[in-house]
């Protein structure tokens, strides 16, 4: 079986991992248009090259980033997301209205 190197657990069978999609910048929630948000959610580069992707090690519940070639399937690098995301993301959209608890 293909082996992937988990940054937390070391080399593991690929069947232990779940693919989580391309790493893409999230548009600014409060100002972006519906079209921009739809593009962020549904549209993909989906090209042949080395891509940064989210992967999840299911047994240990750990998300990380892998750099993989989308035609040769070579996994070049895997690392903790903190290497890319080193600042806290604040969500500034107005909070959803609090619903009354149903008695």
């Amino acid at each position, binding site marked *: *079986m*293909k082996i992937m190197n988990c940054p937390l657990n070391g080399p593991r069978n*690929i*069947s232990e991992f*779940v*693919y989580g999609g391309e790493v893409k910048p999230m548009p600014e929630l409060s100002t972006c248009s*519906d*079209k921009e948000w*739809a*593009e962020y*959610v*549904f*549209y*993909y*580069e*989906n*090209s*042949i090259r080395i891509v940064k992707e989210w992967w999840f090690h299911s047994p240990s519940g750990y998300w990380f980033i892998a750099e993989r070639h*989308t*035609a*040769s*399937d070579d996994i070049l690098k895997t690392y903790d997301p903190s290497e890319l995301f080193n600042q806290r993301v604040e969500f500034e959209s107005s909070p959803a209205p609090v619903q009354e608890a149903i008695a």
Partner: protein
Amino acid sequence: MPFSLLKYGLKNDYPFENDVDLPVPTELKKHYDVVIIGGGGHGVATAYYLAKYHGITNVAILEKGYLGGGNTARNTAVIRSNYLTSEGVKFYTESVDLFKGLANEFDFNIMYSTRGQLTLAHTDSAIRSFRQRTEVNTHFGGKTELIDPQQIKELVPTLNMNPADMPVLAGLWHIDGATARHDAVAWGYAKGATQRGVELHQLTEVQDVIVENNKAVGVKTNRGTVKCGCIVQAVAGHSSLVAAMAGIKMPITTYPLQAMVTQPVKPFLDPLVSSSALHCYVQQTGRGEIVFGGGSDPYPLYNTRSTLDLKEGLLASAIEMFPFMANLKLMRQWAGITDMTSDYSPVMGLSPVENYYLDAGWGTWGFKSTPICGKSMAELVASGGKVPDIIAPFSMDRFDVFRQVNEMGATAASH
């Protein structure tokens, strides 16, 4: 036909020496009214209906490899219309109707055979969803029934009624379910289209799409530049890559889909059988071979390689359904690459670029839609961009307005 057959039977030499199906390739012209990128089933069907119904014959089909050599040759040739949404069922039901008349229309045997397709339910929730699909199908003129285990036993006596300790509780019996020779469908359409004047250029790779003022005006190929009135893109697994040449980003991810076939055995399995829980479908071809298929690979890849783990998993499910198959030998295995949308429905119609029409997002359900797809794309092109009602729900901008056509349940587990 029988008399000419008899005449040829008595001849010494091969009678078709000077009667080839496809015309000899010619030089590319400088300009075509319509350029179709991709010479698979969908591309040639579009050309065929353009020539036949709309009299548009200044058409070139540009194919990187050879006719019907991509996913047209790699699918498992399942034809059915028992989907879930009214948009999907309406579309696929018309496709099945068109398929039934194709052999006569082509005067060429596509080996269409109505075997019926049986999907097994192992849970109460599957039965509920099957009941809904039965009603939607019946409403739109398809023939689908919900049947009980006794009826399933009578239809498929060799089936294990308790596969992987998940008892078969009911079945979605799609009487219209069928199979056909997929290559013959592409050949029939290509023959009909080229006889009417369409040019099929094989080994002609589109390397760039020329867009001026947001209008598609031509393509650059390995055999020179061609100007055109409009472009239809029908390239299956390569949809995102070709669309990117025109500057279009697609709501698509590309996954491999693997299948395999055993040595031929005596006929024992008439219907096409699939299990909603085991993610496996099994059918016996006209030649006696047994074809297995299942879900796509777990992550995206532009590669037709096979993996042992997926094949093992698929065979384990197949053997649970038909235990005696453990003694059979595999003859071939292969993979195709499929362009999956997030709602398991296609992307058809207009694109953000003018005169550039999309026929993409066919994932694992492209073969069964070949005729209706060709017919509606031809209508779209001939009308200069007026989207036919039947494909309107599948437009790409449905993702922008969050109006998806969810066929996941009716597609993902059972093709």
